[in-house]
Structure formats: C-alpha cells, structure tokens
C-alpha cells in the first residue's frame, strides 16, 4: 500500500504516489534553480510543465490511475536533467545580443553608406529615411562645419553593425510608448517576483515600489537631459575652436594679425614657426580631446550603443598626453627666456653744449608704425624684409653730481642668463644727437623682432648741473616720464617752459626770479 497525493500540473489533476511526488518536486526545484526567477525562466518552466502534463496524460489509463516513480524517471529522461537542458543553450544565448536585448541600438550601417554609414545608422535608430538624415547633416555642416565634425566623431565612436544579430538590433523595435510600457512592466514584474519585493510588500506598503519606478524614470530622464547638455556643450565648444582654428587662420596668414597681435610677432614670440605651430596644434588638441570625450559620453547617454573601440580611446589619451608634454615643454622653454633680468648702462658727457640753456627735442622718425600690441609698435623694413618693434623710452631729468651735463642710457632686458639678458639689452637701438644747444632724442627705441617680450625698459636720464636751465619742447611729452621738480608740477604742465636746476631741484625759470 502506498500513500498518494493529488497534484495539479498546468491545470490537469494527477494522482501521484509519495516517492514520485518527491522526485518530481525535486526536479522542478532544480529547474527553478537553473532558470532563475526571471519572467523568461518562469515561462520556460511553465512550458516544460505543460509538456510533462501532456506526457503524463498519455501514461494514465483506466487500469493505471496513479503516477509512480517509474513514470517520473521516464519523464526526466525524456525532458533531460536540468544541467543537460542548460548546457546546450545557456552559454550560447548569454553571448547573443539578439535575444539578450531587443531594444534598438545605434550602429553604423555598412550596407547603406555614403561615407561611413553614420547617417543611415542614425536614420534606422530614429526610424526615418537615411536621405533625410543626410540632408540634415549637410545643412548642419553649412554652419561652421559642425555636421561634418560631429560626423567624423560619430564615425569613430559608433560601432559598425557587422553580424546579422547587430544588423537586426540596428533595425530593432523602435522606441515607442508601447515598448517603454512593456519594458517597464517587465521590470516591474521582475521586481515584484523578487524576494526583496515580497519582503517589502509584507513589511511596508506597495507605494514604495511605485515610488521606486517613478524615481528610476526620473533618473533616466535626468541622464538623458545631462547627455543632451553634454552633447550641446561639446558641439558649441567644438564650433568655437574650429571657428578660431580654421576661419581665423587665413586672417592670420593673409592679414597678418589676430586680435591685434601680428602673426610675425607671435612667431617671434615662439622663436620659430615650427614651435608656434606645434604649440598651437597641441593647445587645440589639449582642449579638443576632453571635449570629444564629453561629446562621446553625452552621445552614449542619449543613445543606446556599445563601443568596441579601445584603440581610439587609447590613442586619444596618448595624443592628449603628448600634447600636454609639448605645451608644458614649450612653455618651460619659452618661460626660461625671461628668467634672468639684467641691464646695460652707458653714460656720456655732453661737452658740446656750452650755453646756459639746453633745449630738449625729438629726432625725426620716418618709419611707418602699425600698432601691434599694448604700447609696442611694429614696422617692417621694406628693403631688408625684417621687422622691428618700437617702444617709447622714459625720459627723466636729475641733478648732476658734478659740473657736467651727462646723459645716461639704461637698457633693461631679460634672458636665459645674465649674459643673455645683457646681449639682448645691448642690441636695443637708441640714439640721440646734439646740435648747438639742442639735444635731440629718438622718440622710439628699436628692438629686433626676435627679442619680443624680452626687452623691459629704456631709461634716458639727463644729469643737469646746478644753475643750468632746460627747456622742454612740447613734442617730447610722449617720452617724458615723471620729471621730479620742487613744486610737483605734472609733466604736461612742464612742457613749453624753461626750468632751472637749483640745489633743491628743478623749478620753473622766470626772468624776474633771476633779478631777485
């Protein structure tokens, strides 16, 4: 005699003896362990249950009404042990994206290309005509070439649909409201069926799960908004850089200036054209590569695609590091040209001047100056083709320590060393001429273009003995720098007047003051 139980398999009632029941129960427990708690796993187990019910039904006759252990053993033999079922399928499917993910993915379409299949891939993703996508790209290209640039970037980033599975994914189900609803429902069911949810349901309330859904939806929306923001920001930055690099380069080369800085000056600043080009290129890459990374991340957040391009990522990193090294080394090399300041000083006695009053005026200057940057002007010598920089000297008057009228010229410059600085300083051209009682000084001092930025200053100081008089022509005002006088009268008001050196300093000379 054996005890029997009644079981229900897929809606069919069976009588089953105790041993058979235990064995069948274990079989299902093992299947469950294999296929897991997912909706898919449950469906598989349900199908197997159906089939088992079918087979069992065939075994039941009027004479044999109870399912015994022998029947179950046969069924397990027919259906296969859980590990047999698994071995054939699980691994294969795990790697196969067709079955893993039915959502549409962004791929490049190799079967429909003009350049790299980016447009047709995008068109598949959005469910529009590739021609429309291409026209849009061309239109966007008209604006500063953005479309073309983004195209190149996407070409590099988006993987090509190579396998049939990827091509299917590329043309996969469009992202529609129904799809989203189904995905959410499936996710919801997964959550509902998981142990954690059951605990939560028993413990607290159902609201928590709904709130979780909403939070996850909001998070997804935020991710997409961030992605769009990143893409927009990156595109705007790229436009700015491209605009500067491509559309201003002709300005630099043909008109010789950008933002008021002449190209030759820039070139001289970098010692030679090659360094300048390397520096500019490296700077552009240094800025552009992180922007491209942001663009890539943004695109990845917005669209759903896998990347398989480690090479591009690594070479981008490599190029970025090389650019960084180039910018830093050029920067240090250039910076070292300015580390050591030094000056060259020369003093001459103006013996030619015997009169009581010395007149100060400017030498004639016939160069055609163009403003370069700040207070520095540039002029090209048409004969030799070399350019020179011109800057204003600082003219000052002080009391002489002896009875001579002396002129002192101090040239200050910077270099890699003290010696280098003095060489640069010596190369500064500045002249004065004396004619009768008039001292003519150059209105500008001249520097070779290659020494741009390395020349600090040129000071001319006239040492005037006590009792001597000096007259400043109005023309010299631009080179005058804060001439000290007893009554602290401003430079401008000192022009066009005669001054006399007194023990306490310069005071304005008036004929009646002499009589006193």
């Amino acid at each position, binding site marked *: 005699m054996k005890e029997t139980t009644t079981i229900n*398999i*897929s*809606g*069919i009632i069976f009588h089953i003896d105790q041993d058979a029941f235990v064995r069948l129960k274990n079989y299902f427990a093992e299947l469950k362990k294999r*296929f897991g708690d997912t909706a*898919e796993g449950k*469906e*598989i187990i349900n*199908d*197997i249950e*159906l*089939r088992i*019910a*079918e087979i069992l*039904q*065939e075994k039941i006759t009027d004479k044999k009404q109870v399912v015994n252990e022998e029947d179950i053993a046969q069924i397990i*033999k*027919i*259906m*296969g*042990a*859980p590990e*047999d*079922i*698994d071995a*054939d*399928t*699980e691994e*294969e*499917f795990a790697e*196969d994206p*067709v*079955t893993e993910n*039915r959502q549409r993915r962004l791929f490049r379409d190799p079967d429909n290309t003009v350049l790299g299949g980016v447009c047709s891939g995008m068109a598949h993703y959005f469910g529009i005509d590739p021609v429309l996508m291409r026209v849009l790209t061309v239109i966007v290209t008209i604006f500063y070439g953005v479309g073309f640039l983004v195209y190149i970037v996407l070409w590099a980033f988006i993987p090509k649909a190579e396998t*049939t599975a990827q*091509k*299917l994914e590329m043309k*996969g*189900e469009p992202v529609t409201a129904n799809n989203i609803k189904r995905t959410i429902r499936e996710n919801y069911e997964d959550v509902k069926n998981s142990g954690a949810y059951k605990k939560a349901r028993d413990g607290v309330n159902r609201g928590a799960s709904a709130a979780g859904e909403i939070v996850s939806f909001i998070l997804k929306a935020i991710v997409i908004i961030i992605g769009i923001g990143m893409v927009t920001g990156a595109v705007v930055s790229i436009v700015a850089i491209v605009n500067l690099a491509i559309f201003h380069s002709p300005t630099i080369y043909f008109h010789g200036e950008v933002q008021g800085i002449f190209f030759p000056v820039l070139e001289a600043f970098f010692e030679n054209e090659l360094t300048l080009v390397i520096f500019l290129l490296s700077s552009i890459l240094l800025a552009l590569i992180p922007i491209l990374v942001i663009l890539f991340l943004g695109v990845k957040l917005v669209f759903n695609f896998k990347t398989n391009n480690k090479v591009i990522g690594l070479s981008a990193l490599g190029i970025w590091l090389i650019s960084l090294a180039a910018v830093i080394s050029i920067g240090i090399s250039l910076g070292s040209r300015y580390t050591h300041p030094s000056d060259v000083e020369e003093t001459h006695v103006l013996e030619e001047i015997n009169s009581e009053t010395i007149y100060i005026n400017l030498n004639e200057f016939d160069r055609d100056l163009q403003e370069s940057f700040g207070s520095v002007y540039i002029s090209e010598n048409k004969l030799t083709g070399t350019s020179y920089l011109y800057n204003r000297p600082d003219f000052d008057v002080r009391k002489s320590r002896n009875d001579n009228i002396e002129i002192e010229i101090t040239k200050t410059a910077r270099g890699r060393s003290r010696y280098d600085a003095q060489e640069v300083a010596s190369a500064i051209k500045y002249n004065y001429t004396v004619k009768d009682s008039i001292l003519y000084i150059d209105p500008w001092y001249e520097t070779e273009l290659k020494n741009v930025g390395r020349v600090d200053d040129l000071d001319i100081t006239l040492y005037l003995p006590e009792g001597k008089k000096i007259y400043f022509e109005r023309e010299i005002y631009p080179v005058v720098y804060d001439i000290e006088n007893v009554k602290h009268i401003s430079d401008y008001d000192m022009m066009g007047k005669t001054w006399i050196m007194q023990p306490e300093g310069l005071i304005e000379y008036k004929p009646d003051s002499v009589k006193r």
Partner: protein
Amino acid sequence: MRKGILEYCILSILENQDAYASDIINRLKEAELIVVEGTLYPLLTRLKNAGLLKYRWEESTQGPPRKYYALTDEGASFLHELDHSWNNLIGAVEKIKNPEKQ
C-alpha cells in the same frame, strides 16, 4: 559547432508551417539534433522574446492547451539572412574540402 544551428533548424521548421512544441521536438529528434526535450523550451522562449517567434494558445482535445508557434516578420527576414550565411558557409566548407572541383 552547434551554436546557433538549433535555432536555425527551429526557424526552418516553422518557415512553411506553424507547429506545436511537440512537433518541433519530433522533427529535431528525427534528425538526431537533440537528445532531451527540455533543451527546446529555453530556445523557443528566447527566440520568442527576441521577437523572432510568436505563439498562440490552442485547446487540445486530450490534454492541457498547447502553444502553437509561428515566425514573425522579423523572424522570417532573420531566417532569410541565416539561409544566406548558411549557404555561404556550406560553399566555403565545400571549397576547402574539394579544392579540385573549383
């Protein structure tokens, strides 16, 4: 080597007529492609979830209702592509095995 072959066979069985799971099992067993029946169910479910198959329930006179499988449009076009790759593969293997015929 069997990777994907079973799926291809299932789709091929369903190309000309819709079928019950047990029909498909019998065909595959005849061809000695599967030993145990259980193997088929995960494949069917996953092909269905991939959108390549669809099914409808049919009442059975003797037992529980049964799933009646059919190809979706996507499944049909996928099968078409598989046929293409399969023929390429056969051709390639033939070339390797009988080089003198070419």
